[in-house]
């Protein structure tokens, strides 16, 4: 495989800042929960500040992440009945939404990059598929290098996208 240089992401700093505040800044929902919500299936381990998504939030998080238009008033009422305040639901929703946004953005950029750099051979399609998955780790580390912000948060791979 040829050396590949991932071009710098001009939005990394501001995206990182937003994610840092949403997942690690002061809030009404504890940061470990917000981080788990943002990281989907690949939350950080406990010793890195990660945690599990609390049971009452699991289904809601999945809905917001995959098909937010299905959220109903009943979903919100159920969360309130489980003891969550509006501010906590506000934080949970944003934590999930921007985790999902980040995941799709990274996967999309990796796929574009793999396509643009794939060798023009008859096997190009297969090569670019393999490249998309393999490149993600590179995109991840390039991301972290490009930003001083420690919030470079739980990244996810394109394989997790349905």
């Amino acid at each position, binding site marked *: 495989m040829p050396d590949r240089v991932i071009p710098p992401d001009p939005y990394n700093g501001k*995206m990182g*800042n*937003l994610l840092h*505040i*949403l997942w690690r800044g002061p809030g009404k929902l504890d940061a470990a929960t917000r981080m788990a919500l943002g990281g989907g299936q690949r939350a950080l381990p406990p010793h890195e500040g990660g945690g599990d998504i609390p049971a009452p939030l699991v289904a809601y998080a999945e809905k917001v992440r995959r098909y937010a*238009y299905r959220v109903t008033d009943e979903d*919100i009422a159920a969360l309130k009945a489980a003891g969550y305040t509006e501010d906590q639901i*506000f934080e949970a929703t944003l934590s999930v939404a921007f985790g999902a946004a980040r995941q799709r953005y990274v996967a999309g950029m990796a796929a574009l990059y793999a396509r643009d750099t794939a060798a023009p051979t008859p096997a190009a399609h297969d090569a670019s598929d393999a490249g998309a998955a393999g490149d993600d780790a590179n995109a991840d580390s390039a991301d972290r290098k490009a930003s001083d912000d420690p919030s470079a948060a739980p990244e996810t791979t394109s394989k997790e996208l349905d």
Partner: protein
Amino acid sequence: MRLSNVTRGHRLPQKLTLRMIRVMSGAEPPDIVKLVMYRPEFFGRPYSDLVDEVMRGPSEWSVGERELFAAFTSRLNSCRF
């Protein structure tokens, strides 16, 4: 909007700004405005910083093209733009 806090639970400065928008435009401010004005230190400020850069900052795409991408993406997500 499903959270009453985000609809009408703003702190005083944001409440006054929203009131001014109502008076000057003669209409209810859009939900996105209420959203970015609710606890702006937690979401609205860093979000607006990012969005300004993405949608209005230097780019090979025109502002109109970028708005079109956003509208198309919202459509794919079944979200109103």
